[in-house]
C-alpha cells in the first residue's frame, strides 16, 4: 500500500495524526557561492540547532532554516586512528586515519565534522577553519578545512 492509500491520513488543514519525519536533507547547502551548513534557529528562544530539526531541542519551539557563516574557529579536535565499524562507509583502498573536530561559529553554535587535515602537528585549538564539501562516492557531505592564511 503506497502513501495516500491507507485510511489514516490527516484531513487537509487538520493536525497531522502521525509524527512528521524530519527532512533528511543533506546538512550542506551548495546552492550559493560556496558550501554552507544548514542549521536551524528557534523562533521562540533563538537557540541554534544542527542538524536542522523540526522542533527546538531546548524549548520545543518552531525552528526556521538558517545557514551558518562559511568560516569559524577550531574549538577542539581528535583523530580517528582505526577504521570505524559500519555504518561507516569505507573509502576505496587501505584505511587512512582522519581527524574530526568541533568548529565554533560565534553567535551561532559549535558543529562537529571531519577535518581535511589529519596531522596532529598541524591542528591547533583556535585556528581558523572553513566549510568545504566532502565527496565520498555518492555521498556528498561537509568537512572543515584549515584556512591557509597566506592565500587569503
Amino acid at each position, binding site marked *: 500500500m503506497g502513501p495516500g492509500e491507507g485510511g489514516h491520513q490527516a484531513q487537509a488543514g487538520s493536525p497531522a495524526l502521525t509524527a512528521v519525519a524530519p527532512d533528511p536533507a543533506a546538512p550542506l547547502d551548495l546552492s550559493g557561492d560556496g558550501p554552507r551548513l544548514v542549521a536551524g534557529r528557534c523562533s521562540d528562544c533563538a537557540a541554534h540547532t544542527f542538524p536542522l530539526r523540526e522542533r527546538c531541542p531546548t524549548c520545543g519551539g518552531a525552528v526556521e532554516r538558517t545557514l551558518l557563516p562559511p568560516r569559524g574557529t577550531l574549538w577542539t579536535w581528535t583523530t580517528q586512528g582505526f577504521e570505524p565499524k559500519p555504518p561507516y562507509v569505507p573509502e576505496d583502498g587501505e584505511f587512512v586515519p582522519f581527524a574530526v573536530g568541533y568548529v565554533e561559529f560565534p553567535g551561532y553554535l559549535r558543529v*562537529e565534522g571531519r577535518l581535511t587535515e589529519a596531522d596532529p602537528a598541524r591542528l591547533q585549538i583556535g585556528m581558523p577553519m572553513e566549510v568545504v564539501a566532502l565527496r565520498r562516492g555518492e555521498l556528498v557531505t561537509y568537512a572543515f578545512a584549515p584556512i591557509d592564511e597566506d592565500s587569503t
Partner: protein
Amino acid sequence: MSVEIAIVGAGIHPFGRHDGVSAMAMGVHAARAALADAGLAWAAMQFAYGGSEDGGNADTMVADLGPTGLPFVNVRNGCATGGSSLVSAVQALRAGTFEVGLVVGFDKHPRGAFQNDPADWSLPAWYGEVGLMVTTQFFGAKLQRYMHDHDIPERTLAQVAEKAFANGSLTPHAWRRRPLSVDEILGSQLLAHPLTQYMLCSPGEGAAALVVCRRDYLEHVPNARPVWLRSVSFRTRRAGSFEVFSPSLGLEIAPSPTVDAAHEAFEAAGIGPEEVEVAQVQDTESGAELIHLAECGLCEHGEQVELYETGATKIGGRLPVNTDGGCLANGEPVGASGLRQVYEVVTQLRGEAGERQVPNGPRVGFTQVYGAPGVSACTVLST
C-alpha cells in the same frame, strides 16, 4: 531520617574474555557469590533487579537460580544499567516494599570498539556514514579541550594508565594484569589524539552482584559485615552538556550529569568529597578519570597533574582511585561495570582487598559511573 540500606553481599565473576562462557552464566556466578558472601539463600530474595546491554534478559537467570516467583525486573540502561538497578533497589527498600533483594549486572560484548546505529540515537544516517559514530572521538575531543583549558600534559594521561595496570596486577579478577610503563603507554598506537591504545579501555565481559537490605533485616543475615549505602544518585544530561554523539554543541557548555549526580549523592549522604578515602570513577580512558575526579569534587580542575606526579591516587596515597585497576584494567562490560565499582569499594571498606587493600582502614568510599548519551550514577558508602 530515611531508612538505612546495607550492602551485605558482594560477588563478582572475573572480567576479561571468557570464550564459551555466556554472559548469563557469569551473572549467575556473581549472584551465587553475592548470596554466599551474605550467607543467604536465593529463596530469601524478595526481589531482583538487573540487566545487561548485550548479554540477554536477566530475569531468565531464575532457570539456574530457582524460579521462586520473585519479582525480577530487567534493567537495560547502557553504562548506567548497574546504577539504575541499584537506585531502583534502594527506592523499593526505602518505600518498605521489600526488606532484602539482589542487584546484578553482566555483559559480553564483541571485540573492538562499540558499534552504534545513528537511528537508535535520533541521528541522521550521514552522521554514521562519514565516520562520526565512534565513541572514542568524543573522549579524545572532550579531553583535548580540557587539557587545553587546564594545562594538563600527555604525561599525566600515561600516569593514569600506569596506575591502572599496576592496580590491575594486584587484582585477581582483573583482565589486564601486566604492569606497563609510562613510556610503553605513550608509545602505543595513537587511536584518538591525545589518547593512545593503552589509555583506552576495551569492551569486555564480566559480572557483578550485590545483596542489599534494610537495617532492620540485618539480624537475618548470617555473614553480615554491612557496608552502608549512604546515598545513590542517578542523573541524565541537561541542555548544553558536552556528550557523546553530539553533531553540535551550544556556545555555553552546561555541567555534565556527573556534576549533578555527585553533588546530589554527597548532599544526600551528609558526607563531603574531602572525607572520601577510596574512590572508583569511570575511566573509559585516562582523561575520563582526570575529568571525573574534578567533576565529582574530589579535586580542583588542573590539580590532577600534581595528584598523579606525587602518587596521591595510588593505593597508599592520599586519595586512592580505581584500586582494582578500573575500566582500563578490567575492560568495560557495560551492564556489570557500575556494580564492579561498588563491589570494589565494599571490599575495601571491609578490609578484605588483599594485596590491593588501602591501608589504615578506609571508612568512606565513593563510586561514579558515566556513559552515553549523558548518564551518571554515583554512590557514597561508609563502614
